[in-house]
Structures are given as structure tokens and as C-alpha cells.
């Protein structure tokens, strides 16, 4: 028996605005009258480390998603997509921002960063669909690279059991008014990208 309507794992690097995505989806779910659970990475890992948030819409259990259980893996960073690929269900969908954030291990030459194709190929084997997009570039096009998370939210929107108008309402309640227009554009560009 399914124990949640939609399970999303959001991954990225500390400081990429992963928590904001959880905040918007949570508000939207509540507006839609759905129960919602989430869990965030706080503390040590936020300092440039790898972060993972779980969001469960229409779920009354714990906030934690089982490995192999995520309907969507939303990756703000390509290497992080692969790092957490084991969370994906075989029927799941991966939405991946292709713009890397280099870890210190790479900038100091201790490790190297793989090519995007090396990352996407194994990802395609573990789930049903992989959408790769330059969300950071699209965000810049919308007006600010800071809106990368909202581009990704736009790409995610059709997988959520929440109406787009509700998501937009939650978005406008969450982001500062002066950035709303940029965020609206960013959302739209992300949505188009997966159509």
C-alpha cells in the first residue's frame, strides 16, 4: 500500500536554497488541504557540504523517504543527483540542474569532477526518466541565478499533486515581493523545460 501521494527528495549543496523549495511546497500543500511532511539538513553540512531534504505530500507518517521510494529526485547540482540516486524509485523521475558546484576536493586537486554525461548515464539506469537542464542559466535568463531553485520548482510542478495556481500562491507568499516577477519567470522557464 502506498503511504504517501508524492515523495520528493531535493538534493544540492549547502546555500543553494534547497530549504526554500520545501517551504513553498509545504505552504502550497496546506493551501490545497493536503497533509505534508518534510525534513531538512541543518548544522554542519550546511557549510558547503552535500544536503538532502525530504518532502512528502499527502502523507501522515514520518518525514523520511525510504531509499528506493522517491517519486522525484530534484537535484540542484549534478554530482549530488548521482550521490542520492539510490533514493529514486524505479518508476521515479530525476530532474537535474547541469550546472556543477565544485567541491573543495576538486578545486584543491584532490579529486576530479566527472562529465555531465558520466553522471546522467547511470542515473538513467535507476529510474524511468531523467530531465537535465541548465537551471542556473535559465534562472539568469529570468533575471537572477539566485532563482535556480525556483526554476527547479517549475520543472517539478507537474509531478506534484498540487495545482499550479496554488504553487504560485505559495511562491508569492514566500519570496520577497520585489523578486516575485523574476521568480515567476524562473518558475515558467523551468516548467517549459520539461514539457
Amino acid at each position, binding site marked *: 500500500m502506498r503511504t504517501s501521494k508524492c515523495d520528493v527528495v531535493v538534493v544540492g549543496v549547502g546555500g543553494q536554497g534547497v530549504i526554500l523549495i520545501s517551504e513553498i511546497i509545504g505552504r502550497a500543500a496546506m493551501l490545497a488541504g493536503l497533509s505534508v511532511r*518534510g525534513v531538512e539538513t541543518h548544522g554542519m553540512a550546511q557549510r558547503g557540504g552535500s544536503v538532502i531534504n525530504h518532502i512528502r505530500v499527502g502523507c501522515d507518517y514520518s518525514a*523520511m523517504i525510504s531509499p528506493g521510494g522517491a517519486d522525484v529526485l530534484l537535484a540542484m547540482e549534478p554530482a549530488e543527483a*548521482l550521490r542520492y540516486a539510490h533514493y529514486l524509485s524505479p518508476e521515479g523521475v530525476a530532474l537535474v540542474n547541469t550546472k556543477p558546484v565544485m567541491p573543495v576536493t576538486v578545486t*584543491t586537486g584532490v579529486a576530479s569532477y566527472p562529465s555531465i554525461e558520466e553522471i546522467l548515464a547511470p542515473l538513467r539506469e535507476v529510474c524511468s526518466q531523467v530531465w537535465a537542464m541548465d537551471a542556473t542559466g535559465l534562472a539568469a535568463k529570468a533575471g537572477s541565478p539566485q532563482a535556480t531553485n525556483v526554476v527547479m520548482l517549475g520543472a517539478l510542478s507537474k509531478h506534484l499533486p498540487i495545482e499550479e495556481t496554488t504553487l504560485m500562491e505559495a511562491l508569492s507568499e514566500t519570496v520577497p515581493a520585489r523578486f516575485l516577477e523574476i521568480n515567476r519567470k524562473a518558475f515558467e522557464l523551468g516548467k517549459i523545460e520539461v514539457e
Partner: protein
Amino acid sequence: MVFILREYLLGNIAIAKGILEAGAGVVSGYPGTPSSEIVDFLAPLAKEHGIHVEWSVNEKVAMEVAIGASWTGTRSVVTMKHVGLNVAADPFMTLAYLGVGGGMVVISADDPYCHSSQNEQDSRRYASFARVPCLDPADPQEARDMILRAFALSEEFGVPVMLRPTTRVSHARADVEVGSPGKRMDKPSFEKNPAKRVALPVHARPLHVELLDKQTGIEAALAEEPWNRFEMKSEVGVIASGIAGLYAEEAIAELEADISLLRIGAYPMPRKMVGDFLERVEKVLVIEEMDPVVEEFAEMVAKERNPKVEILGKRSGAVPSVGELDPLTVRNAIAGMIDLPRRAAPKMNREVLSILPPRPPALCPGCSHRATYYAMRKAFGKDAVFPNDIGCYTMGVGMGTVDTCLCMGASITVGTGIRFGGEEKGICAVLGDSTFLHSGLTGLLNAAYNDARMTVTILDNSITAMTGHQPHPGTGCTACGETSPALSLEDICRSLGAGFVETTDPYDLESAIDAFERARDHPGLSVVVAKQACVISAIRSGVRRPRLKVDEEKCGGCKICVKFGCPAIEFDGEVAKINALCSGCGVCAQICPQKAIEVVK
């Protein structure tokens, strides 16, 4: 009239709102992941609600402030992370004897898997050690509900009550029902009653008897709590506590299995309920985060009520004894008990994952700790001993300047012991400003008193950075933003007996190295205060420094700047490059032997 609102809240915020609803008058704490957001949330609201909220100097201090408040009849709360309770254990243990006035709740947030901690200790052990009730929430809603109940229990039995959220409760979000803020108690006053407030042996002996006598009533009251409940479906059962109860409920629903479930959310555990459950099952799996507290209790009760029952859990190896539980682990433990197939986590090929570069948390671009470590190493040499402490700076472990990390404040004292143990090399202990004020003062006093020849470096970034930028007495303002008395680390260190005290700016490498050399050569106890604002707080307060760039013509590709480890410096195969993360500290320009790094004009 109470209005109930439904909001999407972080567990710690749900707790904070519960504290407001309960009409608490005093909230104190010391920052520590995963507990910090409770005070962070309440501090800006303190004035509006007429309550006192403080970041205390350490957990012991925070506990004692909350105790004093409770003794005026005011409801009080103290918050900390699990290891903070070690610091506060002294007042906590005797408080159980003396008892509370107004309800008092001790929030000790546990961190299974050590996400952001130095150990995996289980606060429930402390509650049973002190013989006080402990409530163990499964999710943010329970955490909020339990706060309200905890105050009532505390007042009913005159003991402090512990709330023990774990990381996945404190940092979970859920739609939570909360009520409107309550009123704090009118006319609080401290009433003299030495028999209940003075822990002289003559008072403590009868108080110990009283505390033991309260246990029967506490247990009976907790047996009625909604968080202890069971549902019989078959002769195969699961007993699960706290968040594990929620994992178990989900697993049983997903498996569509006929399994009886006893959920535990309050301690001391309901002996009769556990016995009744054990009598009706043949086999039972006990699931809980951290220590086998429930499991040991079930084994004890089974001896009286059903010695034949098979008990599986951590001791049988069915449930892991270390780290953090997750829904799949719990599902598989339950499936394994009833011979259903286990579901493997999707295996990613090891080779596939090996292409991924590790991404450990690191010091920020431009963090002054990196510069301080560089200067320290230059002055002391890599063979010196560098006892370290708890804070962001522990992440500098790759720089060779973090040789020990034990607990808050231990850098100085462990360093002292290393000296007296016979080590003759240079010793340079390192701790942050907040950690120094938390528990480094006594260590420095001890080192001076006992004449330890060593250097102590205080990394003064004027904030408690790791836990989310909380103020402390050195920052000049309180949790609520009020101005506090100016404090000089230099003056404190001199007063405590350090013979050499100097402040240096780590962004000025040459003078920092010079200060460390003089500290190193001082024949007694020396202190270097490496003062530079945390780069995150500097940026937040509007500090903008011009960025740096590499002159590719001059760069010889020696990688000295790259090895410095700043995330803003990259190597493209031939020359170094400075990326957009640069915050303009300028330290890399000072270490470049080719003088190839310059300010962007």
C-alpha cells in the same frame, strides 16, 4: 478562547510555539544542533510576549537560570543539545530532588548518526538517571502537544520534565496545529523554603525518599498518555518508541501485515501496558533510536509476565545499535520478523559512485580560521601539537592543525594534560570565542594556575557561527538584540593569569605569524586572540571587500594557493583561478610566492 491554527512548521518552531502557548515566562539555552531554532525563534518575540529569552553562556548556566525562574512560580524552559546536558548534568540531577515551582521543561535534543555532534548519547538515560519523566515525540505535532503536557506534569509532580526530540523531529516539517499564546503567571515570587531549596544533606536525604515516592504516581499518570498506546492484531508484535513508532506504523501499513503495535512516547514506561502487550504476543520486535532503553525494559517486564516471549531488537541484531534509523531499515526489520522478503535499497554500482568527488563540509571562502591555521602552522611548525575544540574550526582538520577534539572547552585542558604528560614539543590549543566563554575560562585559569607552558588561540569571529550565528557575551548584544556590557577577551585572559596576550588580525598574515612566533617563544602561558568577523556575518552586515584575481602571466602553477583550501580558488590544469565565491579576504595574495594574485580594481 483558544484559536487553533494549522501551519507548516519546523519541529523546533512547533516546540517554540508550544512554549508560547504554555505561557512560559523564561526560556534559556545554549546553541547546539539540533536544538538551536527554539531560542532563535522565540528571542525576537520576547518583548511582544513579555517573556525573558536568553542565550546563556553555557548549558549549566542556562539550566540554573531556568531553575531560578521556576522557583518564582514562573514556567520555564531550558534548551540544549544532548551533549549540552552533560554540562548541565550537575544542576539537573539535584533539581529532581529539590523539585520545581512553576513547571519546568528541559529540552535535550538528541542527534542519532552524529549529523552535527561528537557522540550518539541517549538523553532518555539521563531522565531515568535523574528519575524525571521524559517525553519522546515522533513528529512536530507531538512535540508541540508534549510541551503543553510537560508543563502540566511538571507542576503536578513537582519535578522537571524532559522533552527529547531527535534530529528528524527537530528538523522535520509538518502541518501542525498550534493554539494562541498563553498568559504568563501573575505575581511571581520566590518563597523561602530551605527544606525544598537548600540541598544540604539533612534536606537531600528526605528529598531522595520523596522523589522515589513520586515515581508510582508519575508512572500511573504517564500510562494514560495518548503517546503510549497499543493495537492488537496478532500474536506477532512490535514495540516502538518516538520517531521509530511512526516508521513502524508506516511499515506495517505498507506491508499490509497483521502485526500488533505498542507505541511508547513517555517514560518511565507503562509497566502494566507493556506487560499486557507482552502477554498477548509470542514474538516481539523492539525498535527505538539509540540505546535499547525500551528493549531492556521489555526484557525485564517479560520475566514477570511472559518469560516465553521472543524479544528481538538491538541485542538480537535485528535492529542496528548505532547510527540513525530510517523507514527502510525499520520496514526490513519488521518484514524479516514475519518472513516477508526484505526490500534492498537500490544498489548503485560502487564504480559508478567512485566518480563522485567527496563534498565534505568546509570552512567558507574567506573564513579567517583558515588564515589563522596557516599562520599558526608557519610559527609552530607541523610537528607541534594542536589540541582543538568544538566549532566551525574543527572542519579545518585537513590542515594539520586539529589534533584533538573532545568536548566544549577541552582544547586548553587537554593541551595542559599533554604538556604535563611529558610532551615537549610546542603546544597550541585552539578554540572559538563562544566556546572559550562557554567553558574555556576555567581551563585557561587552570593552565595559568598550574603554570602550563603552552599557547592558547582564541578564534574570535564575534559570533557562535556553526549553530546559526547566535550572539554571545563577546558580541555586545543579547539574544533579543539588547546591548550588553562590552567585554575584552584580552583583559579576561590577563586576569586569569596568562603572561602574554595579544590580538592579531589573521587577514594580515605577516603580523599574525609574528604574533604566533612571539607567543610560541613566551616561557609560560600565552594567548593569541585571532580577531576577524565571521565572513558570513560580515557579508550579512554589508561588508564588501574587492574580489581578487590571478594574473595568469605571473602564475607559475605552484598550487600553493590551491592547497590553502579556499573554495574560491580553483586550478584549471596550468594556472590558478579565483571564482565567484571570493569574499575578498586577500590572504591568498599574501601566500602567493609569485605575487600573481591581485585585487580586482
